[in-house]
Structures are given as structure tokens and as C-alpha cells.
């Protein structure tokens, strides 16, 4: 184990253009003759569509077309798992963000004005808004043709874990804790709202640029709506202003609708979303209802019974995958002998929910890490001690039966480092527990949370990635991988990995702007899999390139291929005085009619899962994290002041340290928002806060000093040694805050965000 040096300088390939504002995002792009498309919504939450009247809008000055579902040449319905998303509403309105038409005009202003003239005739239906009601037999159906396990219902999926014998085990327990938790909707709050620009090209290809996290998913949506083949659509990447998991379904839909308009009008069409439209239509982090029963025997978590209900909203999106991770990680990083878990995703007429940074873990961690503190208190021991007695260690078996022996289990390391850096245990002793000093209204508390997290997709789906490395005649190198740059620094990480493997400077390597027509689909940029999967492919490709170079150059360098060394931006033979520059090396390759080009694939090691028992090696490797917080709660106002947030994360091998620190700081900040202030408020199915004046995210002034500890344990199953940090950093701060607020006030909050009550003194009758 190594605690990494965190003072290294940042390097990014896009820093200059982004800092100076030169980087062009989708909405900055302009094409000659380009028209503008905008969506049309209705005031309905759930309704049967009778007709959509477009005449008035069509006659508005500048309007080129008003497009409804009937104009779609391809498929109306699409989706990542179930094809349940009506790309334009045709039969029913299923949530308030359903798009009933697209208005295309010469100017965006004209399109926005004309959109108000589209009329919907609809028969309102009672909306189904409570996920527990939606689960009941006889509930109205959000999708009448949806069948799950042989019957019509609103269930999108049901994951299970059946480990040991829970009912017998609870009888053996010293005590059992039973609690219900609720978590809220969260908006991703990416800086750049959705945008797409589609150009019908002279060769018959529909060219698409947009703000998205997965160009290949966008390509599938576009091809589906157009009724085109995948090869008829080329999605090219432009700078993206953030995603946090939120630039998949909705981002793809915006591009698909723009492509539909471009196809119908045979001209370039741009569709850029206002923040209000983005809030209204885009998917959110799932609100969860969690019923948790935890049994303790001899100081150990002996049994856990968990029922999870995730509100999927009107569409399925990736709910089965999100809730699968919740299921696998439903007991946190602890050894538990007996586990019974049932996780349901369920349709309602609320805004739909999907991927968001954390992907099913923030909700569960909010519950588990509070339960662990509750258990420790009942036992009369410190929450630190209780975690040490229960946590996963090298060779431990997870609740799905996976033995953790292929990598370094660094949970104890991240825990110990956090405790040490915070001087945690002496601070724990100082907590107010509801009693303030005589002269102060500030109640002091500290709290922490631990997690482990499966890396990449695991048994959720196919998991592989590829990279292309192509050395040019002058020795410069073009590199690309099938992972998308969403602003997180993926391209820079790949350049650093390739430069490290090839022993070149980063200046020699340029990242090629990716296109879906150039590299194979490598899956979406989610699940903190960018660095581990894309980086793995980059390593494989560079090794293949080095093999080719060594075979071709060994004669010139008078040695065996195996003796050739790559460093100092050159290619060396057996001794340091025999070398070729890259320019010379490529020249030599061309003379031999050899192409210095390599394609590398990294396939995730095998994983397994049994849907009925919840047994399997769910993920091929795991990361470990610990976050802690110190805060005060003002007992007169309920205001929480964060004093310090500290995180320790194991990342495998660190590639670009300042980017890792950025992920950790940003993750803690977003986690603080989850715990204390962020909440998409929905009333009768309609989102009440659709911009940042009413949806509050933490700002610099809300945030305290932050400290990050980075632990490096290179992972043998990751070719680059690196794992991931994007999501682990975002799944711990909310429960740490909830524990700290308890330690400050003596009051537990089981719903996020915490709504701190103020002391209601006796006389306030």
C-alpha cells in the first residue's frame, strides 16, 4: 500500500481551450442554413391523447415544420433496456416531461413562440404517483403492454439475494434494528444542458454532434427514429459540459429528435435545451424507499433483511441496472452471514429516473452507514470499533459469495488513514449529542461512512473496450479509445497512460476526436469505468504497437525484439547509445511496408450472477473509500455549518493526480448537497423547481476545507493498474453528514436531504 503524493501538477489536453473559452460546445456550433428545433410539452401528467393540433403553430412566421409521432419514419418507441420510451408521445402522456411535438423554425425564437400554439386534446387520467401504490395488484398500468414475470404490472425488475436463513438468524440475534429510509430525486446539475446538431450529409449519412456521454447509445436512438442502419449515422464528439451519468437517454433523445427534423427538412437542425426543459424532461437519480432490518449477534452484523423500492417514473431507462448495484451492495462493506434482499423498480407517472453518479449506491449507503452507527450505539461501543469488527478484509466473502482475493482489499487502509488524518476518535468524544455549551447555540458533531464499490459494469452487462493507436509518418501519434470525454479528463488519462507505456512525452500524442464510424462501440462512459476499461484498452494497444515496432526495428537496433526498450521519447536497443527517434523508427517501418498501427481490446475478467439466489462474483474488482465530516448544527436555526470534509479513496494506480483530487472534492460537494440541500420537488407529478434559483446545489460558500487521501494499490486485473474514482467519491458524504448531525443533535434523520428541526421549547404552545 502506498499513500500517493498528491502534489503533482495537472495535465490536460483540453485545459487551454477550456480555460480561455475557446472550446466549442454543441450549442456554439453553427452550420450554414441551420434550422432550430424546440420541444413541445403539455400541462398533463397522465392523459390519453385524442389529437394534437399543429395548424396554428405551422402558420407562425419562420416555422418550417411541426413534427409529431405520426411523422416518424422509424421506430416511435425506444429505450436502453425496454423499448418503452415514446420518442414523441403518440398514445398517452405518461409524465409531465413527455414531448408531444417538435417545432422547427428558421430562428430559435420563432420556434419557441410557435411551440405555445400547439394544442393537445387529451383525456386526463388519474396519475399514479406513489411507487408503493404502483406495486399493488390492481394498480393502474403505466405501460399497458408491459409484462413482468408473466403478468401485466408496473414492476420493471425484481432482484434478489438469498443468503443463509434470515428468519432463523434473526432469532439468534442479541437485538434487531428496523428502520425505514427515504431518499429524494436528484438533478445531475451538469453545466451544459442537452444539445444536438444534426446534418444530413452528401453521402447519405446523418451526422450528429451533441452533448452526450455515450455516442453509440445516441447512434442507436437516432438510427431507430430514422429507421436507418447504424452505419447510416455518424455521431461525432464535441466538447461536453458534464454529465454525472445524466447525458444518456435524454441526451440521445434530443439528438434523435433533431435528426428526425433534419431528415424531414433535409437541412441541418440544432436542438438546444433550456435549463427548465432539461429539469423537466431529463431523468433523475431514483428516490428510494428502503425497509431495513439488521440483526446483531456478538457484536457482528448477523443478518439483514432489505426491501428496496425504486421509483422508475414513467420509463424504465436503466432502472434494472441501477437497482442491481443497490442489491449487490445492500449490506455495505461488511461481512454478513444471512441476507435476504428484494429490490423492485416500479413504473409511476413521475419523472423517469436513470443513471446518476453513484448508480444505486448513495441511497443504500445513506441507510446502511446510519444503521451501523445505530447498532454500535446500542452495543455501547464506538462506531469505529464496530466497523472494524465487521468490515471486509483481504480474503473476505461478500454477501453474494464473492471471495475478495484477486486484489488488495484496502478498506482498513482507507479507514485508518481517515481516522488518523482527522484525529477522529478524539473528535468523536467531543460531540455535543444534543447538549450545547452554555454560551453557544452551536452543536458539534462528526461522522463518517465507509463503502466498497464494484468497478465498472460487473454482471450488469457486457464489458469491454477498445483503443486505436496510429503512429504518423513524422513520429507523432494519434490515440483514441471507446470512452467518452464528458469533461472528466478521460482523454488526458489515456494520453498519460499511453505516454507512460511508450516512454514518450505527452506532446507526441494527440487524442483523435472520436466518431462512432471509426472505433467499435465500447459501451457507455458510466460506472467509473472510463479509466479502468479505456485505459486497459490503451495499454493493450500500446503493447501491441511496441511488439510491432520491436519486430520491425530489432535489426536496425542490432538486438533481439525482447531487448528493445521504450523511454526518453526514443526507442533503444540493448545499450543506451543505440537508439532511434520516433521519426526514424516510422521511416524504417514504412521502408519495410509495416504500418505502425495497433488495435487493442480489453475484456473485463469473467463475472457471474444468479438472478434467483443473488450469488456470484458480481464485479471483477472493487474500490474502497471512507469519508468523514465535522460540522455544527445551530440549535436555534437548524442551520448546518460544515467545518471539514476528509476522504480517503483507493484508486488502484493514480494516473492524473489533480483530476483524482478534483473528483474527490467534487464528489464530497455533491454528496453534501445530497445530504443537506438538493431535492427535486414534485407536486402532483409536476416538478416545482426547474432552475438553480429554486434547486439549490452547494456553492463554494457552503463548503468547508476539504482533504483528500489517495491510496494506491495497483490492481493486477487492470492492465493500467488503475481503477476508478468518479462514483466512489460521491456515495459517502450524505451518510457521514447524517451520522455527524446525529452526533451533534442526538436526532436521527431517516430521509434525505436532512430537514433539521429546531428545538421547540416548551413554552412555544
Amino acid at each position, binding site marked *: 500500500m502506498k499513500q500517493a503524493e498528491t502534489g503533482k501538477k495537472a495535465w490536460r489536453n483540453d485545459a487551454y481551450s477550456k480555460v480561455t473559452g475557446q472550446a466549442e460546445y454543441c450549442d456554439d456550433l453553427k452550420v450554414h442554413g441551420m434550422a432550430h428545433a424546440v420541444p413541445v410539452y403539455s400541462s398533463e401528467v397522465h392523459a390519453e391523447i385524442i389529437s394534437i393540433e399543429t395548424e396554428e403553430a405551422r402558420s407562425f412566421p419562420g416555422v418550417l415544420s411541426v413534427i409529431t409521432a405520426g411523422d416518424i419514419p422509424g421506430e416511435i418507441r425506444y429505450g436502453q433496456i425496454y423499448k418503452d420510451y415514446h420518442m414523441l408521445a403518440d398514445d398517452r402522456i405518461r409524465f409531465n416531461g413527455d414531448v408531444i411535438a417538435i417545432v422547427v423554425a428558421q430562428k430559435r425564437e420563432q420556434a419557441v413562440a410557435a411551440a405555445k400554439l400547439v394544442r393537445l386534446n387529451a383525456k386526463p387520467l388519474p396519475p399514479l404517483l406513489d411507487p408503493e401504490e404502483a406495486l399493488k395488484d390492481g394498480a393502474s398500468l403505466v405501460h399497458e403492454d408491459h409484462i413482468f414475470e408473466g403478468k401485466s404490472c408496473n414492476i420493471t425488475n425484481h432482484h434478489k439475494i438469498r443468503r443463509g436463513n434470515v428468519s432463523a438468524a434473526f432469532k439468534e440475534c442479541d437485538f434487531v434494528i428496523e428502520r425505514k429510509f427515504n431518499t429524494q430525486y436528484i438533478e445531475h446539475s451538469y453545466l451544459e444542458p442537452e444539445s444536438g446538431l444534426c446534418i444530413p450529409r452528401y453521402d447519405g449519412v446523418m451526422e450528429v454532434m451533441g452533448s452526450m456521454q455515450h455516442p453509440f447509445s445516441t447512434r442507436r436512438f437516432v438510427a431507430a427514429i430514422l429507421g436507418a442502419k447504424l452505419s447510416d449515422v455518424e455521431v461525432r464528439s464535441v466538447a461536453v459540459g458534464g454529465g454525472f451519468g445524466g447525458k444518456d437517454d435524454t441526451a440521445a433523445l434530443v439528438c434523435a429528435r433533431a435528426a428526425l427534423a433534419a431528415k424531414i427538412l433535409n437541412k441541418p437542425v440544432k436542438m438546444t435545451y433550456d435549463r427548465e426543459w432539461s429539469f423537466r424532461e431529463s431523468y433523475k437519480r431514483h428516490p428510494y424507499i428502503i425497509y431495513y432490518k439488521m440483526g446483531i449477534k456478538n457484536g457482528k452484523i448477523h443478518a439483514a433483511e432489505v426491501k428496496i423500492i425504486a421509483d422508475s417514473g414513467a420509463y424504465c431507462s436503466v432502472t434494472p441496472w441501477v437497482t442491481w448495484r443497490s442489491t449487490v451492495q445492500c449490506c455495505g462493506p461488511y461481512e454478513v452471514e444471512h441476507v435476504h434482499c428484494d429490490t423492485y423498480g416500479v413504473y409511476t407517472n413521475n419523472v423517469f429516473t436513470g443513471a446518476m453518479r453513484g448508480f444505486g449506491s448513495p441511497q443504500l449507503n445513506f441507510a446502511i452507514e446510519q444503521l451501523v452507527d445505530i447498532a454500535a450505539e446500542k452495543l455501547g461501543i464506538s462506531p469505529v470499533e464496530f466497523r472494524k469488527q465487521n468490515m471486509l478484509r483481504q480474503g473476505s466473502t461478500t454477501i453474494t459469495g464473492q471471495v475478495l482475493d484477486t486484489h488488495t482489499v484496502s478498506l482498513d487502509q482507507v479507514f485508518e488513514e481517515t481516522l488518523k488524518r482527522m484525529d477522529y476518535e478524539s473528535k468523536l468524544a467531543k460531540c455535543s449529542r444534543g447538549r450545547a455549551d452554555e454560551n453557544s447555540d452551536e452543536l458539534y458533531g462528526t461522522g463518517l461512512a465507509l463503502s466498497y464499490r464494484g468497478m465498472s459494469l460487473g454482471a450488469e452487462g457486457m464489458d469491454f473496450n477498445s483503443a486505436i493507436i496510429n503512429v504518423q509518418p513524422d513520429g507523432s501519434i494519434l490515440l483514441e479509445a471507446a470512452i467518452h470525454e464528458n469533461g472528466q479528463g478521460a482523454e488526458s488519462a489515456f494520453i498519460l497512460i499511453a505516454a507512460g507505456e511508450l516512454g514518450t512525452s505527452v506532446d507526441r500524442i494527440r487524442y483523435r476526436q472520436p466518431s462512432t464510424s471509426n472505433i467499435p462501440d465500447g459501451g457507455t462512459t458510466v460506472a467509473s469505468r472510463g479509466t479502468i476499461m479505456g485505459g486497459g484498452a490503451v495499454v493493450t494497444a500500446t503493447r501491441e504497437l511496441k511488439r510491432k515496432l520491436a519486430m520491425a526495428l530489432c535489426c536496425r537496433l542490432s538486438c533481439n525484439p525482447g531487448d528493445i526498450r521504450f523511454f526518453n521519447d526514443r526507442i533503444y536497443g540493448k545499450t543506451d547509445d543505440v537508439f532511434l527517434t520516433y521519426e526514424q523508427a516510422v521511416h524504417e517501418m514504412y521502408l519495410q511496408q509495416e504500418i505502425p498501427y495497433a488495435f487493442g481490446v480489453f475484456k473485463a475478467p469473467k463475472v457471474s450472477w444468479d438472478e434467483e439466489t443473488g450469488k456470484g462474483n458480481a464485479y471483477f474488482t472493487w474500490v474502497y473509500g471512507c469519508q468523514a465530516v465535522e460540522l455544527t448544527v445551530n440549535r436555534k436555526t*437548524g442551520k448546518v455549518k460544515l467545518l471539514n470534509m476528509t476522504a480517503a479513496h483507493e484508486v488502484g494506480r493514480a494516473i492524473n493526480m489533480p483530476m483524482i483530487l478534483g473528483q474527490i472534492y467534487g464528489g464530497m460537494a455533491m454528496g453534501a448537497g445530497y445530504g443537506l440541500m438538493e431535492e427535486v420537488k414534485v407536486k402532483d407529478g409536476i416538478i416545482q423547481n426547474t432552475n438553480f434559483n429554486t434547486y439549490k446545489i452547494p*456553492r463554494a460558500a457552503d463548503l468547508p476545507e476539504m482533504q483528500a487521501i489517495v491510496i494506491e494499490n495497483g490492481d493486477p486485473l487492470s492492465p493500467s493498474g488503475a481503477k476508478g474514482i468518479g462514483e466512489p467519491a460521491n456515495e459517502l458524504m450524505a451518510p457521514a453528514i447524517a451520522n455527524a448531525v446525529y452526533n451533534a443533535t442526538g436526532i436521527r434523520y431517516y430521509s434525505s436531504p436532512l430537514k433539521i428541526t429546531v428545538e421547540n421549547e416548551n413554552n412555544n404552545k
Partner: protein
Amino acid sequence: MIMSSFDYLKPSSLEEASKLLLENKNSRILAGGTDLLIRMRGGEVKPEKVIDIKNIAGLHEITWEDGRLVLGAAVTWTRIKEDAKIAEHFPALTQASAEFGCYDVRNRATIGGNIANAAPGSECGSPLLIYNADVIVYGPSGERSIPIDQVWLAPGRTNLAEGEFITKVSIPLYPASTKSAYRRISRVEGQDLATCAIAVMISNPEEIAAREVRIALSAVSKTPMRAAELESFLSGKAIDGETINFCKSWMHRNLYPRASSLRGTPEYKKIVLGNLLEDILREFGVLAGELI
């Protein structure tokens, strides 16, 4: 995107501005624009004429005359926040200015605009109420002065007549012994509207019999309001734990914040305002046992 077209006018005199305002029924005064432009963008207001008053001489001035502070309507919140003399005489106003918006909003937003916007939780509301400020307006019949507690009628509605607009705010000076303070609660630090706020002023804090207490509350009613009943209860008497408890209970019995607020529940606002009042009185040193 502002979806309605409008003419931008920039008169250079009060007369001209009032005339334009009177002639154009659907027109709006523009000062800082931090409220107006957002509402125009949202389509809530669609003025045909936008009349910018920043070119009118005198509206940018901060003057001290005849025992009064006079703030031009176009004085920005940054200037109020940074004025040491205002901080000395009207600390509640300075404290409110520090909570107002954020740097860039304070650089544009004006005191006149904040009054004219008539928000129930406006930052200027409680401080101007406790200081008995007068709002000077100019209109077709010339200049007139409106006491601050008669300016606001309802959210977004003021007592100004057709063709009238705010030109100045005039605040009387108080003896040096007077104490005043402003406290507000918001969900995040900075750039959020107040969840609720309170301003308190006490004159003659050291002479109980002559003591006058003024209390104003924001974001609990349709307009910022004075709590007259509480004021007469607290004025001229020693304040102790029991008095404080009465005040807290008064908040519960007499305040009816709207339940639909995204920022705080009625119950929370009522409790917190009582606590903030206690806080301020303790800080003033007027809680029995500490000063007397």
C-alpha cells in the same frame, strides 16, 4: 432568451421618465435589472417599453443631510455594503446588504429596484421598516414621500400611482445609543432568497422606561411587516426569559407563512424567528441579568 420585443429608453430627467411611464401603459422601469430581466426572460412580464433610469442625475448619490441618510434609487447594494458610515448608523441595512444576492448581483441590483419589486422576503424590507424609512417617488404631480410601511401592498404590488417611480430612500438618523440588527436564514450560503428574516431596533437600550423596540419580519406574510403588538409588548419593560417566551409564542399565534414555500415550512419559520429575536436581544445586552 427574452421572447418579447421592447423599446429601450434612457431618459435623462425625472420629468421625462415620468412622462414616458405615463404615456406607455405597458412599460417598466429598469434600474439594476436583476429582477426585471429574469421575469422578462420567463415571460411573466412583457413590457413594450423598458425605461432605464440610470441616466438621471442624482439617482446614484448617497448623501447625509438634515439628520437623514438619503440613498438614490439607483445606488447599488455593493455601495451600501461597502459604506462605512452606513454600517455605523444603520447596521441592519449593512447586514442585509451582505446577505443580498452574490457579488455580481450586488454590483447591479439597486435599493430602489429592491423596494419596487415588492418581494415578501426582500432584503431591504425589514431594515427599512425598523428605521422608519421614507420612500421618495416622482410622478405626474411632482415629488411625494411615502412611509415605508405603506409602500408594499402584496407580492409584486406597490402603492405607487400611475407614472410614479422611486427616486430616493430617506432614513432618519438615530442617537448613537440605538442598537439595530438584521438576521436571515437561507438554505445555502449566499445567492438565495431569505427563508425568513428579522430586523430589530432598540432605542435607549439602557433606560428601560424610555426604551422603544421595533421589530420587522420578512418572508412570513404577503409583504415585509412590522410586528407592532410585539413592539409595544417589549417597549419600556425589562426583558427576561418569560418575555422572550411570550414573543416566541406570539410568533406561533400570529404568523401565517404560506405552506407552499419551497424554502421553509411555516412551523420552522415561526420557531426560527423567535430564536433569532432572542439571539439579537441577547447580543444587544438587553436580556435581564446581563446589562442591568
